[in-house]
């Protein structure tokens, strides 16, 4: 972590400007980096920036309501906070946001598919990760193991953080290559692909719970009257769940990719999240969470919105 930032946070903690700092704690593989809330200056050294901070920190702000907190945020996390603020779930002004230069997050599944052995340790170094295990030591370029959502990242830096730390970020290509590839498939092939993904789902709802913007008190999938989605493993129900969730995310999803990495079954949820991001971008020239006042894409309209598809 940047020394200047630590000094700044220390000062703010000590003079009572903030009650604590929310960030990620770096753990040695195979333990996972998790979120920690630090309320004393000695604890600050536990907070670290890492390629393996796979959650969206905005998910946790609900647990800190009413506290003055400094939060270390990446682009997507800050946009999620803005979005939550627009939707009156929290007050953006209560938080002191420190923008981190984001190099993306690594999907451990991709690392495992490249390292055919038992991984013992993973180190991060610039744009490389060094993987060590029973099959020796290899270096992997981060770009090869980047989370799918990061590949479609439109904005790695925080648009409205209180301070931004300078540094290298991933390049915001947002070329939606995978989405375009799927769009070029025939209808049956598309379903074949998605069916295979959806059939993996065990309905643990990790995707929903780690999503900063899935905050509904009663999720539609839990509603029994009307029952939008029936219980069980039938792919029609599972697809309904994921599609309706995506509809709710359209124009709100910040593309952090937390859901895809959290999924214990490795379902490629980014194929869906990137699709809705691409659609709102192309159709409404919209990106979610750019400010704490910009409404979600589907809660506003323009007179000249695209409507050629309507008879």
């Amino acid at each position, binding site marked *: 972590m940047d020394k200047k930032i630590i000094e700044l946070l220390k000062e703010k903690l000590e003079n009572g400007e903030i009650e604590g700092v929310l960030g990620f704690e770096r*753990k040695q593989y*195979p*333990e*996972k*980096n*998790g*979120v*920690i*809330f630090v309320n004393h200056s000695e604890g600050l050294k536990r907070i670290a920036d890492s390629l393996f901070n*796979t*959650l969206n920190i905005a*998910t*946790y702000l609900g*647990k800190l309501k009413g506290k003055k907190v400094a939060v270390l945020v990446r682009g997507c996390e800050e946009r999620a906070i803005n979005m939550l603020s627009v939707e009156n779930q929290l007050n953006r002004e209560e938080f002191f946001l420190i923008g981190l230069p984001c190099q993306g997050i690594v999907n451990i599944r991709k690392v495992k598919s490249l390292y055919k052995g038992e991984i013992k340790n993973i180190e991060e170094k610039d744009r490389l990760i060094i993987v060590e295990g029973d099959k020796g030591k290899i270096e992997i370029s981060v770009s090869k193991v980047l989370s799918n959502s990061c590949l479609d990242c439109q904005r790695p830096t925080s648009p409205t953080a209180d301070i931004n730390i300078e540094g290298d970020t991933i390049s915001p290509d947002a070329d939606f290559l995978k989405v375009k590839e799927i769009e070029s498939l025939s209808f049956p092939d598309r379903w074949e692909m998605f069916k295979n993904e959806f059939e993996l789902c*065990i*309905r*643990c*709802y*990790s995707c*929903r*719970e*780690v999503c900063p913007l899935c905050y509904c*008190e*009663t999720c539609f999938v*839990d509603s*029994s009257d009307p029952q939008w989605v*029936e*219980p*069980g*493993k*039938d792919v029609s129900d599972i697809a309904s769940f994921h599609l309706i969730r995506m509809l709710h995310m359209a124009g709100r999803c910040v593309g952090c990719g*937390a859901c895809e*990495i*959290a*999924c*214990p079954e490795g379902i490629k949820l980014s194929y869906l999240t990137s699709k809705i991001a691409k659609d709102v971008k192309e159709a409404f020239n919209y990106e979610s969470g750019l400010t704490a006042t910009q409404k979600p894409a589907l809660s506003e309209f323009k007179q000249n919105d695209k409507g050629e598809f309507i008879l």
Partner: protein
Amino acid sequence: MKKIPKAEFIKELSKWGKIFFRTDEGFLENNELSNRRPSKPPKKFVIPQEEIYLLFYRPEQKIVQKEIFRKEEKKVIFGLYPCDAKSIELIDLNFLKDPKDPYYVKRRESLLLVTEACTHPSTHCFCTSLGDSPFDRRGDIFAFGMKDYYLAEPLSDRGREAILWDKFANATEDDGKLLEKAKKEIEKSLEQFDFKNIHKILYQKYKDKIWDELAFKCVNCGACTFYCPTCYCFDVQDVERTNWGYRERVWDSCMFTIYSLETSGHNPRSAKMTRLRNRVMHKFAYYQTSYGEYGCVGCGRCIDICPVGFDIRETLKTLKLEAGHD
């Protein structure tokens, strides 16, 4: 204890039923045995994620109810590590106590559990901390894999009847020594905590503020419960069609809000922390009170799978320290 050539052992067992082998992902047919604890538990063999158990239809005026028992073919679950074998025994405690669950009974009777001593514990394993051993003799048959042979012995009637044991030679004293040596080595290699009296500490610390801190990371998804080999909670729901319908049960998770939400809107476990606490308490205290066994086998799958890095070992360790134990 018998000494049986590997191929022959498998051949003998295949006469009893279809064999499902331990693989990295789970227990699958026609597969080579892997050297790792499968990422998925054998739970689905005793409680499928979705089970339609009653069918109703209305041929005329009156409604007709039909129980749906699946046809259960005989299956050999081969190479369960003792933790997974124990997990099924723990689930048994719930479903085989009175009133017995007839669907469960039928499925359970179709299974032959062949346990293999665990020689490759994973990094998150902690069975020894709970007083268990990776060499515990559990299931219907216990086996220890050597280069070309299995040392094997039956532990139950089903195990005794599954194979013509007399056909095979007895294991020698040296074989026994080898087994003991391996056991000691593996047990030693496993990280040791001591959670043997953790239930007392949990009851003592139930109302402690520490729980808020412990539960901070948890987002209450159901991944741990669905990957847990001993979590058996289920939900019952009806599905309605025109003139017919069915009642089914599906896996449920105590981490979900609606798990305990009452129709009146009152939820005894509305706070996220209380749901996590209930899960931990259920495994390490309530199960102990009810059955004298912990509801956890120390397989570490919940730690593997948790998307937020929640570590049950850390939690128990913290609670122990808080309670003034080392």
